[in-house]
């Protein structure tokens, strides 16, 4: 019987970790992800999990310890935000290059300078090409569900890649929401017993990790990593089907909200998608065919499926909670543009940068964007391809 609780996003993720009962956790606290590890370390102290908790001196060390524990043959978790992820940077590539199924909760927060602790996707977007799988979550329930599914995806024998589960700092991490927990036994059964691949502690079968790979093999390893990435979508969908059987909650590669017959649409990640859906309902009530696409699997990005879901629209606005300086458009916009490029008939695309450093994304903002899209759809003309929402002049 599912237990219902009123919890913060951080508490939901910490509970997912508790239910999975990983072998090792190495972490260093950083706002707004701190509460995950604060709660998890108390589960360790209270004997509710059998996890070896390693308290380290930095995030670089945290990810290094996670890598060490994963090659030893353990199931490993970690949580961080913003500068913490930035400090893990070089180790992120090592975790993915060594194909280690580490699960990391990334509570999305802006990057310094100027220093800011609030919701922003610059941290996750900056690490989008580091070979990890990325799942993004709208609310506490999705963060909890994605965390549990992340273990199955990461540990699938054809995949063996680390997974980053993203949730918005403060808006989700610190707000209390209603969530449905699975039973501890259900989660234990769902993730199953951890099966290590080439564990260093299997002393009867000695292996070496981390050899020098020079010009004659490096590109072959990168090609092989790409091949693994091409298999991820199918695994994510398979795990989602199994998860639906246990939880009754359905997940896909993305959430297509009232998109089938839509003429105008928004593409938006995480918590702001919830606000946008309400506004879209209002437009639908007025007979305006508006829809929304909220990516869930951002790495590897399901280009074909996303392109297919959006190609029939007249105008689409991609909203980015991160900028990509020098890339001109936000990181999500570039993925959506790439998804639609193969189609001769495709929607007009515009890009809005919103909510940086935790600035509120309000229903009025979604309304303004949808009104602009109606005009673009009607005239086919675009005034500005990229704009910032709610910036003071």
């Amino acid at each position, binding site marked *: 019987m599912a237990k219902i609780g009123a919890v913060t996003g951080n508490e939901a993720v910490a509970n997912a970790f508790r239910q999975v009962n990983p072998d090792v956790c190495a972490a260093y606290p950083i706002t707004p992800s701190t509460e995950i590890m604060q709660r998890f370390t108390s589960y360790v102290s209270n004997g509710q999990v059998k996890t070896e908790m390693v308290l380290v001196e930095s995030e670089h060390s945290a990810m290094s310890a996670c890598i060490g524990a994963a090659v030893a043959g353990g199931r490993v978790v970690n949580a961080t935000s913003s500068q913490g992820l930035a400090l893990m940077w070089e180790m992120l590539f090592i975790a993915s290059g060594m*194909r280690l199924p580490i699960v990391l909760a990334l509570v999305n927060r802006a990057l310094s300078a100027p220093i800011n602790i609030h919701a922003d996707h610059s941290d996750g977007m900056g690490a989008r090409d580091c070979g990890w799988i990325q799942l993004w979550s709208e609310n506490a329930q999705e963060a909890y569900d994605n965390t549990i599914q992340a273990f199955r995806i990461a540990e699938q024998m054809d995949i063996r890649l680390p997974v980053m589960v993203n949730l918005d700092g403060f808006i989700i991490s610190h707000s209390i929401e209603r969530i449905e927990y699975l039973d501890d036994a259900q989660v234990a059964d769902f993730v199953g017993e951890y099966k290590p*691949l*080439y564990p260093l502690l299997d002393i009867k079968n*000695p*292996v070496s990790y981390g*050899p020098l790979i020079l010009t004659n*093999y490096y590109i*072959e*390893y990168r090609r092989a990593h790409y091949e693994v990435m091409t298999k991820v979508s199918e695994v994510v969908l398979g795990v989602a089907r199994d998860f639906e059987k246990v939880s009754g909650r359905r997940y896909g590669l993305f959430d297509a909200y009232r998109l089938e017959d839509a003429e105008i649409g928004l593409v938006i990640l995480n918590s702001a998608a919830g606000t946008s859906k309400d506004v879209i309902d209002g437009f639908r009530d007025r007979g305006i065919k508006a829809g929304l696409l909220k990516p869930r699997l951002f790495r590897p990005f399901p280009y074909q499926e996303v392109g297919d879901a959006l190609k029939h629209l007249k105008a689409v606005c991609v909203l980015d909670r991160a900028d990509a300086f020098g890339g001109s458009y936000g990181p999500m916009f570039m993925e959506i543009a790439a998804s639609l490029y193969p189609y001769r008939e495709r929607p007009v695309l515009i890009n809005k940068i919103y909510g940086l450093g935790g600035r509120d994304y309000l229903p009025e903002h979604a309304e303004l964007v949808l009104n602009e899209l109606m005009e673009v759809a009607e005239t086919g003309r675009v005034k500005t391809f990229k704009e910032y929402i709610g910036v003071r002049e």
Partner: protein
Amino acid sequence: MKITLKGWRELTPGVVITEAGSARRFKTGTWRTFRPRWIEENCIQCLFCWLYCPDMAVKVKDGKRAEFDYEFCKGCGICAVECPGKKGKKAIVMEEEEK
């Protein structure tokens, strides 16, 4: 020297090496641009070349200097520098590798 390289489909996940002592099969001889030549009549059997070789490219048989192992010799030339030779004549000389 002909070495067969594996294709990307044949690689282990995570660059893991599943076999102990496999460095023996990493033939570094292809790195060589200069090749050491052993001139036996100038050799005093001091075995400095064996001692100084950073790889295991100088073979010793029954306590005596034997031929180079060209599958591993990277051509660094340390043996040729250290070789005292006999009466001013080196027992190891470096020669440009044939293209």
